[in-house]
């Protein structure tokens, strides 16, 4: 299994590319190497994350005190819409699969690249085109989209802002997602190294594989829905708008038939990363490997059955309401299976609390709060009170930002030495996690209370009794801004002038750690032959001698 790589001799993928010249901008933009594509996604997606975060912080500034603070109501409407659209469609849906899936899926199964490298590059370009269309929709006359990221009918048919273009952008972005999914499924089925049986695949691969299925099956639904809205806007076809004889609830069904499975596109890969990090830092094989692998598939499947829990107050039938409420509770089962197995893995392990592990700890707390409050809004009776309040805003920031966002950083801090061959400042990184945890809770926990007290979402103004908690939350957003600067500069400065890292600083044993850091163009000198279970740490000794 060990390749005996002598990293002094091997050229890394930075020194050797798939284009004629191995350096310069073109060697990146036209590269079909999955690692370079992953890094391009990393840069692009991080930029959008920062833009989205700036919108978020500006919104918090508006909400610092009652009344108009820094912007008008209409501007606020566009701000939360853009914040939502950027964070959802440009950051969190592509996030982990496009960056870390691209970079590590082939490495973890011992392949030279993904199955269709050119389609992989195409998916990046489609992403760029989609993102440019979003930006274009802000600049051309008509005004920035103001419907909220959910584009609900009938407002989205009647509003004069550039909705058609903005949702068309989401349509285009969908194709990028589908192509990535297609590529991953084919890669997993066809390109595993000898000995890499299904049940020897690392759990990140399982999670990305399950996600890829959702990407392929669910994304077309949003594409169809978007086209129907555009048809309705341009030709007045009465599909959704009640004034034209359409059914607005049908829009909500179709929107959430995609967008609920999409939340599993966001969280499943993150859960996969957690299943990688915990064994490595607990030095112990994962507890319940098969249960975790299968729970990914179960979540992917059950994720299709619960979409209408977003619609309890929409006016759909009572029968549908209780059925969907019941089904919603089922999703908690496979998610619980994962959390219990992770905790069991740590039991009697020898834990090394390095930054990636600290991120995961913070994830478990934040995601559990997010998940459990999900049950509160998932039960019909309580949701009637909490629907469309700040409680929901708090809930989804806890799951998306506290869950997937946190793990995006965890993955970056875990695989950083592999991706760049360098190391960041560990102390600053650990402090970053601590600050993140504190500012996160300061920023979002008050929103649970505000929501419970009745503060509705998507308003730029509020009643005086909400002022104290709103102020605390705004202070939290400043700390969050500073923390993000700390976390990101630590990474950027490590890329520029970081110390050279050891080949395998954490002592990981999955295949990506069996090659040099950063890996060579075709990933492995010799295609590895897999003889161990994925988290069998007895290989560590063997690996040390081999390299």
């Amino acid at each position, binding site marked *: 299994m060990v390749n005996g790589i002598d990293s002094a001799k091997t050229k890394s993928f930075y020194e050797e590319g798939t284009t004629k010249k191995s350096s310069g901008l073109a060697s990146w933009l036209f590269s079909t190497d999955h690692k370079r594509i992953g890094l391009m996604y990393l840069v692009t997606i991080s930029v959008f994350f920062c833009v989205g975060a700036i919108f978020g912080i500006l919104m918090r500034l508006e909400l610092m005190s009652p009344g108009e603070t820094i912007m008008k109501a209409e501007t606020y409407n566009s701000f939360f819409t853009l914040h939502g659209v950027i964070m959802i469609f440009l950051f969190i849906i592509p996030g982990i699969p496009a960056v870390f899936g691209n970079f590590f899926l082939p490495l973890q199964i011992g392949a030279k690249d993904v199955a269709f490298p050119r389609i992989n590059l195409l998916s990046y370009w489609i992403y760029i085109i989609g993102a440019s269309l979003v930006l274009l929709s802000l600049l051309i006359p008509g005004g920035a989209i103001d419907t909220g990221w959910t584009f609900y009918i009938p407002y989205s048919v009647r509003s004069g802002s550039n909705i058609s273009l903005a949702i068309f952008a989401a349509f285009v972005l969908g194709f990028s997602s589908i192509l990535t999914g297609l590529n991953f499924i084919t890669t997993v089925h066809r390109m595993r190294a000898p000995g890499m049986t299904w049940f020897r695949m690392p759990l990140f691969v399982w999670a990305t594989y399950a996600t890829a299925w959702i990407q392929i099956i669910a994304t077309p639904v949003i594409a169809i829905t978007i086209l129907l809205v555009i048809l309705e806007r341009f030709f007045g076809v009465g599909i959704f708008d009640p004034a034209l004889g359409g059914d607005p609830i049908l829009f909500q069904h179709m929107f959430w038939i995609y967008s609920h499975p999409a939340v599993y596109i966001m969280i499943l890969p993150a859960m996969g990363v957690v299943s990688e990090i915990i064994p490595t830092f607990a030095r112990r094989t994962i507890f319940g490997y098969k249960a975790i692998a299968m729970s990914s598939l179960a979540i992917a499947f059950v994720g299709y059955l619960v979409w209408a829990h977003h619609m309890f107050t929409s006016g*759909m*039938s009572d029968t549908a309401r209780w059925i969907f409420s019941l089904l919603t509770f089922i999703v908690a089962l496979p998610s619980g299976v994962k959390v219990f197995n992770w905790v069991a893995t740590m039991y009697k392990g020898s834990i090394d609390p390095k930054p990636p592990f600290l991120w995961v700890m913070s994830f478990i707390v934040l995601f559990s709060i997010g998940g459990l409050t999900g049950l509160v809004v998932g039960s019909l009776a309580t949701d009637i009170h909490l629907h469309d309040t700040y409680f929901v805003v708090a809930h989804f920031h806890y799951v998306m930002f506290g869950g997937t966002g946190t793990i995006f950083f965890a993955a970056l801090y875990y695989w950083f030495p592999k991706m760049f061959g360098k190391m960041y400042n560990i102390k600053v990184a650990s402090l970053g996690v601590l600050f993140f945890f504190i500012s996160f809770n300061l920023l979002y926990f008050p929103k649970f209370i505000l929501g419970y007290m009745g503060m509705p979402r998507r308003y730029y103004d509020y009643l005086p009794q909400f002022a104290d908690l709103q102020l605390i939350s705004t202070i939290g957003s400043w700390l969050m801004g500073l923390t993000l600067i700390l976390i990101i500069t630590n990474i950027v400065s490590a890329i520029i002038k970081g110390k050279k890292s050891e080949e395998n600083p954490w002592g990981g044993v999955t295949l990506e750690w069996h090659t040099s850091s950063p890996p060579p163009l075709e990933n492995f000198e010799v295609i590895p032959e897999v003889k161990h279970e994925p988290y069998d740490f007895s290989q560590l000794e063997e690996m040390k001698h081999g390299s």
Partner: protein
Amino acid sequence: MNLNLNHNLNLNHSLNLDPNLNLNLDHTQNHSTPYGVYILVWLGLLTLTAITVTVAGIDLGNYTLFIALTIAAIKSYLVITIFMHIKYEEAIFKVFLLVSGMTLLIIFVLTFVDFSYR
């Protein structure tokens, strides 16, 4: 018979694709369907379309949609198995299609839990 993607589709870039990547692209060529079958299927599709159009004129209440969707499903089945050659493909492709089809079915059923009880 497996054939290597490299030789046939010229999808490779400067990295050679892994030889493990075998897609059974030539499977269908080995099982050429006689023209007669194609014509028969085509006539079948036309008949089904005619039925859809006729039924649309009759008021069958709640069954209208059910019948229309059933006919559409039969038509897609014919197109996918015969015209798209899935009949002769490996089992894995059939599994993929089945999973997608079942998901779609579930989505329809659950959506109608709302519409039929409103």
